């Protein structure tokens, strides 16, 4: 992708984005139905995850199969916190911090692994955590004889609107973070690493440090999204907290929407949210159909929708519109 020509559109797109953000923020106040708010809540959570997955896989070249580890750890930290007097608001940040800390600790062994080894190495983590949390119960009463789940205390009074704003803020943060990174030196370095790690190193890029930056940012924001989700639910178990779905969701969003672009995850997350709500009443069939769609899309349309649009030249028309509008704005 070319960041350069987007610079020209910066001012107008910023205006449009802020406008969209304001409109979305007003939704709970202007009587939008609760079911819509619920729907958008999920969309925002999935979007944050998709953006971070895209940062890792699409821009840094790290196919990391452990989003569930970040989500689950953040969720558990927050949930357990509420049982020892830590309010969920603090738990939200603490959870994200724990996820980032976890990322920091495993980065040393995990960045030594290359390619598929890295993928499997990261796959081990949520599975191991799932097993661990099945047996580890630091606080609270025994739950069916072993570890397992926690409820989240103290969230009964929170309205859906407030949770909606939280999710919106996290999604907006994820978009903002990716946006900033792509225009900063870090984005250049990450793309260089993705394209050719050896050349990047011999050109002065500290591979480990940049990968770590990307990894920590992704872990933190995925943690935020995860903790926010569990504030909404509001209970967590190992099977759910470390579920493969937390990997499937951003992966599908990125494959369908297109990776390595800023708009891809947005399109993909929208479609994935739509799919999930459509299939919500079908239990295991939901997962079945999602699997089929994943396989079909990756075979038939590997570059995703964003890639398809780009190839078809669909961007040229709005680009021209934008340029004309910008020209007019400058004249007034």
């Amino acid at each position, binding site marked *: *992708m070319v960041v350069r020509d987007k610079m020209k559109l910066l001012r107008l797109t910023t205006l449009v984005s802020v406008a969209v953000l304001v409109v979305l923020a007003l939704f709970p106040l202007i009587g939008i139905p609760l079911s819509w708010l619920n729907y958008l809540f999920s969309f925002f959570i999935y979007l944050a995850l998709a953006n971070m997955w895209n940062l890792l896989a699409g821009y840094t070249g790290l196919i990391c199969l452990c989003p569930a580890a970040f989500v689950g750890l953040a969720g558990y930290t927050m949930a357990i916190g509420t049982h020892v007097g830590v309010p969920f608001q603090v738990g939200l940040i603490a959870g994200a911090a724990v996820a980032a800390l976890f990322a920091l600790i495993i980065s040393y062994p995990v960045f030594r692994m290359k390619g598929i080894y890295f993928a499997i190495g990261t796959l081990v983590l949520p599975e191991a955590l799932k097993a661990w949390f099945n047996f580890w119960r630091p606080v609270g009463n025994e739950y069916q004889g072993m570890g397992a789940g926690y409820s989240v205390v103290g969230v009964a009074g929170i309205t859906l609107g407030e949770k909606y704003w939280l999710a919106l803020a996290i999604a907006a943060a994820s978009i903002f973070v990716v946006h900033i990174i792509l225009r900063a030196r870090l984005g*250049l370095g990450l793309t260089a690493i993705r394209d*050719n790690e*050896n*050349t990047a190193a011999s050109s*002065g*890029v*500290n*591979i480990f440090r940049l990968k770590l930056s990307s990894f920590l940012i992704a872990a933190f924001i995925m943690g935020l999204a995860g903790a926010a989700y569990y504030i909404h639910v509001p209970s967590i178990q190992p099977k759910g907290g470390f579920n493969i779905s937390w990997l499937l969701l951003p992966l599908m969003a990125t494959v369908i929407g297109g990776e390595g672009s800023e708009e891809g995850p947005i399109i993909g997350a929208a479609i994935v949210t739509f799919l999930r709500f459509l299939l919500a009443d079908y239990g295991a069939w939901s997962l079945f159909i999602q699997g089929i769609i994943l396989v079909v899309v990756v075979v038939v349309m590997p570059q995703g929708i964003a890639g398809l649009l780009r190839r078809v030249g669909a961007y040229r028309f709005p680009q021209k519109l934008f340029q004309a509008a910008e020209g007019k704005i400058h004249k007034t």
Partner: protein
Amino acid sequence: MVVKVLCDTIQRSKKVTMSETAVLSIDGVSKSFGGIHAIQNITFGVRAGEVLGLMGPNGAGKTTLLNLIAGVYRPDSGRILFEGRDITRYPPHKICHLGIARTYQIPQPFTSLLVQDNLMVAAKYGNKRGDTLELDEILDLVDLLKQKDTIAGDLATVSLKRLELARALASNPTLILLDEVAAGSTEAELPRILDITKQVRKMGKTIILVEHVMKVMVEAVDRIIVIDKGEKIAEGTPGEVMEDEKVLAAYFG
């Protein structure tokens, strides 16, 4: 206190002597890969501002040697000194920061980035020595200025070779390792390549040149080192080396 002053003077005089003779110093370096001795006890120095040619039959270890200098491999024994500093165990990015840049025999560009962004990576991450460079000038030097907004993955192989050199220059190096920059070029293109090499030399850079194309080797370099099967077998001016029996034996059996 007296001891300190004494030590400092000795250090400084060592450095002075070094910079008069060697900006890069390879000292008894060896490297094996699982029983295969790729480089065996090689010693030589590279003087500031010179163009040193590195020659040898296929598989002699030339690229391995470059990789050792660039920090991609670590020597099993021996030392590598750059501007007085022991860089033997330094990682590649740190070696770039100190002022050594390298090109790859098979071009390794950042395929999804624009040509100028390929240079930007090196400029923003590799140049730690203060003075900012005009990337456009570098692109102009290698005849890629018109293609600065092309995506690197769309360039022809010959252009990619020149991009390699441009990217190396963008990190503002003192020493450049050129790995077969002329390979694959036609007869007509050779003079331009020679010209570019000479211009780089005029910029004050020191160059180590690995090349198979004899014309470039002979006309561009001051001195040549010949290695065969990982060992240094000859060292001298192009004229001397071409007549050396050991060199002829290595190439023609």
